[in-house]
């Protein structure tokens, strides 16, 4: 009996060989560039390692303790969460609002529809370079404009002082992400069946009532998706921060990814950097799972 099932198993495997051959290149690439490095990350985190030579200096959990005692580590989390929070509130709201106004109809709709999306097509690095110049204390348009209208005392070095640096970066980030949220909102608002809106018109509903009772409920799944994408994307934020401030001044704009990058490639502390990245992954996975659970719960409720 057992032999028979074994035979069946072997037969299944044999019949699967063509499929295995097709996924082999993908799986091989993943082994070499993901799984092996991934397990290495755990190993490195237990050593005092500078990125070259043999790993011999085993230090156990010392790297983790070092990271957990580093105030900068927690600050980088805080900054990442500030970025996520602002992005969730402002970017999604403004993105939706714009898509709603375009949906309702507006003069030059086609022009707006096309042109408002353009910032999303510009790479983060280019966006960072452009906005760094815009915030420039001397030649930057913001300060020059303030001087022009007689508000010289408001002009300041936006990116190189503690109180404004993080805010300036978050504004740039939101500027770049609104178009995406707008596009996805617009695509989903368009799937709303016209019948509902027409029926509401016949019943004499106002624009606001239609927005409140028909459009917003229809958009909730979209907002959830955009929220999840925002969180996962923003946790990886690096390009704009690195191009604009390199995490400075004094760590005021350090985010999770730039923290790891600095530890590894500026200070050559691969062990500590790996420990930090593993702790970050734990938090990120916890957040991702929490989001999925919340979403599942929401969907279950609806059914």
């Amino acid at each position, binding site marked *: 009996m057992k032999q028979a099932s074994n035979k069946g*198993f072997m037969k299944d495997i044999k019949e*699967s060989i*063509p*499929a*295995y051959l*097709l*996924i082999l290149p*993908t799986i091989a*690439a*993943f082994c*070499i*560039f993901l799984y092996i490095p*991934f397990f*290495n*990350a755990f190993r*490195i985190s237990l050593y005092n390692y500078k*990125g070259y030579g043999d790993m011999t200096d085993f230090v156990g959990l010392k790297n983790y303790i070092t990271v957990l005692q580093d105030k900068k580590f927690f600050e980088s989390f805080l900054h990442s969460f500030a970025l996520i929070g602002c992005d969730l509130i402002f970017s999604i709201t403004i993105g939706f609002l714009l898509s709603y*106004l375009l949906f309702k109809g*507006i*003069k030059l709709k086609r022009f*707006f529809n*096309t*042109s*408002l*999306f*353009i*910032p999303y*097509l*510009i*790479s983060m*690095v280019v966006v960072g*370079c*452009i906005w760094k*110049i*815009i915030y420039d204390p001397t*030649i930057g*348009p913001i300060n*020059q404009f303030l001087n022009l209208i007689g508000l010289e005392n408001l002009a300041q070095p936006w990116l190189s002082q503690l109180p404004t640096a993080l805010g300036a970066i978050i504004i740039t980030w939101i*500027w770049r992400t609104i*178009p*995406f949220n707008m*596009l*996805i909102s617009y695509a989903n608002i368009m799937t709303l069946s016209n019948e509902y809106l027409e029926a509401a018109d016949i019943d004499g509903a106002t624009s606001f009532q239609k927005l409140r009772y028909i459009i917003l409920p229809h958009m909730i799944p979209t907002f959830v*998706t955009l929220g999840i*994408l925002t969180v996962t994307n923003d*946790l*990886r934020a*690096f*390009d704009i921060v*690195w*191009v604009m401030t390199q995490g400075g001044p004094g760590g005021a704009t350090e985010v*999770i*990814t730039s923290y*790891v*990058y600095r530890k590894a490639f500026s200070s050559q502390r*691969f062990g500590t*950097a790996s420990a930090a990245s593993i702790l*970050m992954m734990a938090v*990120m996975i916890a957040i*991702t799972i929490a989001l999925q659970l919340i979403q599942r719960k929401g969907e279950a409720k609806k059914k």
Partner: protein
Amino acid sequence: MIKIQKRFIAAVIFIFVFLYACISLYPLLWVVLQSFKTEKEFLSSIWTFPSSLGIKNYVIALTKGNLALYYKNTVFNTLATVALELVLVTLAGFAFSKMKMKFKKVFFYLILINMLIPTPIILLPMYLQILNLNIQNTIWAIIFPYFQGFAPLGLILIKNYMDNIPNEIIEAAKIDGCNTLRILAGIIVPLIKPMLVTLAILGGMSAWNEYLWALVSISNTKKYTLSVGLAVLRDKTSSIGYTPVFAALTISAMLFVILYLVAQKSFVRSITAGAVKG
């Protein structure tokens, strides 16, 4: 009365959207305008229009700023990445969608799990891995990591697309004696062309824009991509001036803006399709 009110609201809405459009587009237009000015013109006022449409800054950016080289590298990297992504994802997608495979779910999740692993954790060990394999500064150290980042989303999209292709078509081809590769090339690929365009746009955009991995992995300045090169160039304003940097920014940003204006529908479709949550 109601009509006037409605008009008023429409005007307010228009002004709101128009103001947003100014904030959204002004930085880009400003950079493009400055890129045509001479350095002296720019430093004397940042608000004026250029006196002539000189391309001198573009020449400086492309030659002295090495932008031509970075551009070539980026085009090469992007095309190679997209080619690899399309081929591997099509092969794997077909296997997952249409073929008999023991432990299918296990393998599928082995690939999807990458969505849970954040970039920074894999950055260092991946860097050590390419040193180990002795492929630093080669195309392999670019395309495989990029493929690895793209594969989960690409696989989900292409598998879902292939799931909609009726199995009868494949069965019929099998009876006619076609082998798997013939079926793929002759029947499946023509049917999934729209999805391949979508994947090419998504993969192409992310490969073109990628910064962190290029910054970490490329040590040879001759292999720099636009992203890495631009960040370097930006810090050289004191030696080559501001206006060539504006020209460099314009050149780097233009390609995808133009592609988008030409093929807006494909872009919108791709980006909407790519917004599936992990």
